[in-house]
């Protein structure tokens, strides 16, 4: 089942005097249960592509269909709701609301979706234990390590059962051990919950764990390979 379809998508920036084709004719699709990474040199368009898929940005050409929604047809406020319902985001850093506890951060989207309190609590606990942080549910982000914060972010992204999770260089600020722990958790969630993950990364450790590696260069897909682990 196709979760994301990208048809001949362009994203051009005219901000400076030169025109930058950040995404230059990309056609791709992602299946449910994918664990895909997008790699490529700096400036190759990874972040731009992820923003387009997540409905944070609009293509200047082509079309993106996510879970049956043509993103170009959604109004700005509908796009926000679309993201709340269908996309889980994990950013490189500064993912969490500093004044909320880990538990409240994980439950944040659930409360935006108006989940009843009991259900929300149960789901939050479930997610926190899935990322191995049940005992830190009362901690504020400032009291957590960078790796723990990223795990809370993954738990939040997953809590509302989105269509897929977009993560732009989620391990970039982490040491090896924290990065491995985070990857273990994501691989497990991908297996257990059939959750679709789409990453961008420079991190060789992430590439090693991926089952699909898409390589971008100058805004174009130059390779798209399935990887079989053992």
């Amino acid at each position, binding site marked *: 089942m196709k979760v994301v379809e990208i048809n001949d998508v362009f994203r051009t920036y005219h901000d400076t005097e030169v025109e930058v084709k950040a995404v230059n004719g990309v056609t791709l699709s992602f299946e449910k249960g994918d664990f895909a990474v997008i790699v490529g040199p700096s400036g190759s368009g990874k972040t731009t592509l992820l*923003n387009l898929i*997540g409905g*944070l*940005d609009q293509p200047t050409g082509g079309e993106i269909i996510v879970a049956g929604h043509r993103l170009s047809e959604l109004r700005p*406020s509908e796009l*926000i*709701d679309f*993201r*709340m*319902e269908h*996309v889980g*985001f994990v*950013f490189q850093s*500064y*993912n969490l*609301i*500093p*004044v*909320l506890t880990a538990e*409240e951060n994980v*439950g*944040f*989207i659930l*409360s*935006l979706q108006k989940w009843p309190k009991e259900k929300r609590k149960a789901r939050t606990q479930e997610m926190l234990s899935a990322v191995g942080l049940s005992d830190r549910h009362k901690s504020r982000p400032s009291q957590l390590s960078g790796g723990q914060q990223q795990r809370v972010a993954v738990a*939040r*992204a997953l809590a509302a059962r989105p269509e897929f999770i977009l993560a732009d260089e989620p391990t970039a600020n982490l040491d090896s051990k924290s990065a491995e722990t985070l990857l273990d958790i994501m691989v497990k969630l991908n297996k257990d919950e059939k959750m679709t993950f789409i990453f961008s990364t420079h991190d060789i450790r992430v590439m090693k764990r991926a089952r699909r590696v898409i390589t971008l260069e100058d805004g174009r897909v130059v390779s798209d390979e399935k990887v079989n682990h053992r």
Partner: protein
Amino acid sequence: MKDYQLAWRNLWRNRRRTLITAASVFFAVFFALIMRSFQLGTYEKMYRDVIESYSGYLQLQHVDYMDESNLDNSFVIDPGIISRIEDDPNVTAVIPKLESFALAAAGSRTQAVMVIGMDPDNEIRGLNIRNRLIRYRLTPGAVESLKAENLPGLTPKLLDVFVNESFTDEESLISILGIDRSDTLKILPLLRKYTVFDNGYLTAADTGFAVIGSGLSEYIHAGVGDTLVLMGQGFHGASAAGLYVIKGIVNMSQPEIDNRFVYLTLDDARYLYAAPGMATSAIISVRETDDDNLLMTRDRLREVLGDDLVIRTWKEMNALLLNQMEADNKSGAIMIGILYLVIAFGVFGTVLMMMAERRREFGMLVSIGMRKGKLARTISMEMLLIGLLGVAAGVAGSLPVVFLGYARPLRFTGEMAKMYEDYGFDPVMPMLLPDTYYLWQVVIVLLILLVAIAFSVRKVFKLNVINALRA
């Protein structure tokens, strides 16, 4: 997580900034309220002074008297009209008054004065001149004797400053001399012994007596028991002259009045000016003194009066004073405006800083699905809370000060008091109890907040998520 919970937590993430911002609002509100209270309280006192010592709340006059205040525009008191006016539910008494100019002389000094003729027994129901009788006076002799008593603190020095001053009550004497409350009991008997001023007052039966203002008394060097010569022009050009023994001296607080004040019985004044049965005005004393009731009373009585007579309110009669106060009021409002402008910039600075600091966070929140409206609501609530915190603290902080300042008006001591008196003001700064002016301060702060909130709401709606995330 409710919006207000998030707002409340955000409030305390930068505790110091929140407190500084709230504190700046607090100080603005606090000082503005105290300033207003003093200012409005002072006006109120001035108005009360002219009303009680001179104009009353309402006056019955000849229609032309206000434009040309002379004897030619006087009228004959008609007992029928008077009793019909007294029948009005809001009227308690009608007190005829004959008022004109004269030249007063005692010894070699002369002064143009204002002669007021009224029934002294009746006067108390409309004006309050009797309470202005001088009871204590720091004559040079009294000052010498008091200094010999070795009084504590600054009092001996202050005695020199206030030599020859007069006082209508003990309270002002004590405070002006800087006497400590704890010493009052000890010193009061001494003050009474040396400074009590033997003063008298008119009765309706008196003929040939006058009560004069303390300023006039000083100027013409005439005191109780001295003879005052009045000369002027009576009704229809008759000449007016008379001799009066000064029976009492009053302190009329408004210096323009005090320096020219001569009070006779109504009969003496009518005789002096050859105007039997006449009055230049009649003070109508009333129960309810607010503007609405005064106007209603005036309008009710209109039909009783006929064409020649009108009723004037104190505001009509004191238009000049009201104008002056209005001008002063404007300059006060400008001061407060500047105060608030400074605060507005402070609040705006906080808002700008807060919005810049949290741009990334806002980008993240909108990315993960928080509607911009909801975000804007949370931020607005945050700022409203800071503002209201400041306003509430300012109002709460000012209340005890204002109530204290009302119950125990600030009285100046020493040189400061002397300066006030020399400029013709009572050295007293009464405060006005909370009134609509309180509401205005709150409204102004809310308006400032509203502008700041509108600014940040606009910022939120214009937020470009991608740029915010890259920041």
